[in-house]
């Protein structure tokens, strides 16, 4: 198992300052969990802990950005996007500031903390905001590159990070292309469009499907906004069937974004793998992926059913 995407956070910020980027981090009492403590340890004068006050966290970061800093914020996804939504909307995005939200503990793989802490609506909340870019890296290496891209590109960013270790999909020297989806495996029968840790599950699903004679194309939609319509449409035209895979609600996230693109360009039958309009619950991460139907097996089953329809 590789490292968690959250492990990329603190160490990437340290590297960026070393390269001369004027990075600061604002945290809300979760620095050890988010790994911004790594950054605080090296650059204590660039780290500000607001305590348990997420609204203040976002707006202090906004003020720092007003003075020219590249301001990253921590906390967990549920608090940074939910509790501080109005601060993100009305100050960060409305003023178009260099604030980069990179909260951790998104999705059900938060595990035993349960539904109150398992954020499943954040992609929907963030991608609806004008000017906000939404990145959902698949693994540790991609997360490092995504954080780097967020730092180097002006304006608001949301980088969705997770708690648990995920298998590496990308090599250590990978780069992040903003607005580009990556075709990780070519196929002709069905497209599996995934983001975050579901990219790994989609690749496994493609193996399962190959054994059944179904050639699945796997796309990592690492940038959910601005979405790579060209790559998604091209793949859908080739395969005629799309399954979206996300550790997020089926409402508002990757599945919705892909459906928007396809319905306006090349409507094809779809299935959305995701959490089906319910809250999370306590359990171990692997148990929860099974409980909510987010495994490679679930993806493969949905793909086979879809192929039966479109064949």
């Amino acid at each position, binding site marked *: 198992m590789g490292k968690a995407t959250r492990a990329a956070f603190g160490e990437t910020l340290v590297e960026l300052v070393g390269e001369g980027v004027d990075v600061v981090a604002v945290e809300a009492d979760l620095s050890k969990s988010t790994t911004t403590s790594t950054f605080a340890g090296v650059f204590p004068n660039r780290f*500000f802990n607001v*305590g348990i006050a997420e609204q203040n966290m976002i707006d202090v970061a906004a003020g720092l950005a*007003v003075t020219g800093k590249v301001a990253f914020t921590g906390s967990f996804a549920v608090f940074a996007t939910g509790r501080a939504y109005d601060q993100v909307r009305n100050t960060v995005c409305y*003023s178009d500031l260099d604030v980069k939200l990179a909260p951790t503990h998104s999705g059900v793989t938060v595990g035993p903390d349960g539904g109150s802490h398992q954020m499943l609506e954040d992609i929907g909340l963030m991608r609806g905001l004008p000017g906000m870019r939404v990145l959902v890296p698949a693994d540790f290496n991609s997360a490092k590159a995504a954080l780097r891209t967020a730092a180097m590109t002006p304006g608001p960013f949301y980088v969705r990070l997770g708690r648990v270790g995920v298998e590496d999909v990308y090599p250590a020297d990978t780069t992040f292309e903003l607005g580009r989806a990556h075709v990780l495996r070519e196929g002709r029968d069905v497209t599996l469009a995934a983001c975050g840790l579901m990219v790994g599950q989609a690749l496994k699903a493609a193996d399962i499907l190959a054994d059944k004679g179904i050639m699945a194309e796997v796309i990592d939609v690492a940038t959910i906004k601005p979405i790579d319509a060209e790559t998604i449409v091209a793949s859908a035209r080739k395969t005629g069937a799309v399954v979206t895979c996300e550790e997020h609600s089926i409402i508002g996230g990757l599945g919705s974004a892909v459906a928007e693109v396809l319905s306006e360009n090349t409507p094809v039958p779809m299935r959305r793998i995701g959490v089906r309009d319910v809250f999370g619950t306590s359990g171990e991460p692997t148990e929860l992926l099974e409980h909510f139907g987010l495994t490679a097996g679930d993806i493969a089953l949905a793909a086979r059913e879809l192929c039966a329809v479109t064949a």
Partner: protein
Amino acid sequence: MADGPTTDVIRRAAAGMRLDIVEMIAEAGSGHPGGSLSAADIVATLYFGVMRHDADSPDMPERDRFVLSKGHAAPVLYAALAEAGYFDREHLSTLRKLGSMLQGHPDSRKMPGVEVSTGSLGQGLSISNGIALGLRMDGGSQRVFCLMGDGELQEGQVWEAAMFAAHQNLSSVTAIVDSNGLQIDGSCHEVMCLGGIGQKFAAFGWQVIEVDGHDVDALVDAFEAARVASETSGAPSVLVAGTVKGKGVSFMEDNAGWHGKAPSADETEQATSELRAVIAKEAANG
């Protein structure tokens, strides 16, 4: 005491700004006259007596920063910026109209001299804290002024920010509470009583100065006292400025009904004649 010539300039500016506020809201057909008029002397004192700024160079790094946390009082800020020369006065008549840089609440992407967009209450002090941190990191000595309403203090985030500013020793931050005692639904005391504003900031470790928010001499002195108190103590300062909502227009004064509506044609005529009389008096004094 503040010196005479400076405060005469401020008083004249405030009188002119009040007329602009009423005329632009009347022209717009909507807006927030009450809280704009109550803040006119405070904002005039900042822009024409206290703050270091240059309309010809809005992004001058050495400028002091102003954040209008009570963003609905946008007309008072626009009147000050126009008076200072940030944009042509002709724009004032475009307030709240399609395509205008004078948005209903301040939009930093459209308006020169506006540091950050505001309008959703309770956020300005947090933003000001971030600005103060950034300026301090870069070795600057600029001051950061944040104007809030007293009703706005009901937003919990204000107190997250009060706690943070004191903890970080943000002595460059000066908050001003435009304490006019009224909010949309009535008196602040009746809608949701906060209790002693100064006591609460003091309890968080702030330097607190009570001042008459319509006495320009007192305001100039209070801003200087705040600077000295903060430099000495290392703590942020707050001016709790006692004001009258709708100040300067007899029928608007101390009336919550004038929080967010435009005057009719007849009301506008009465209001502007009252305000013109003040302008004439100030001009005679000068």
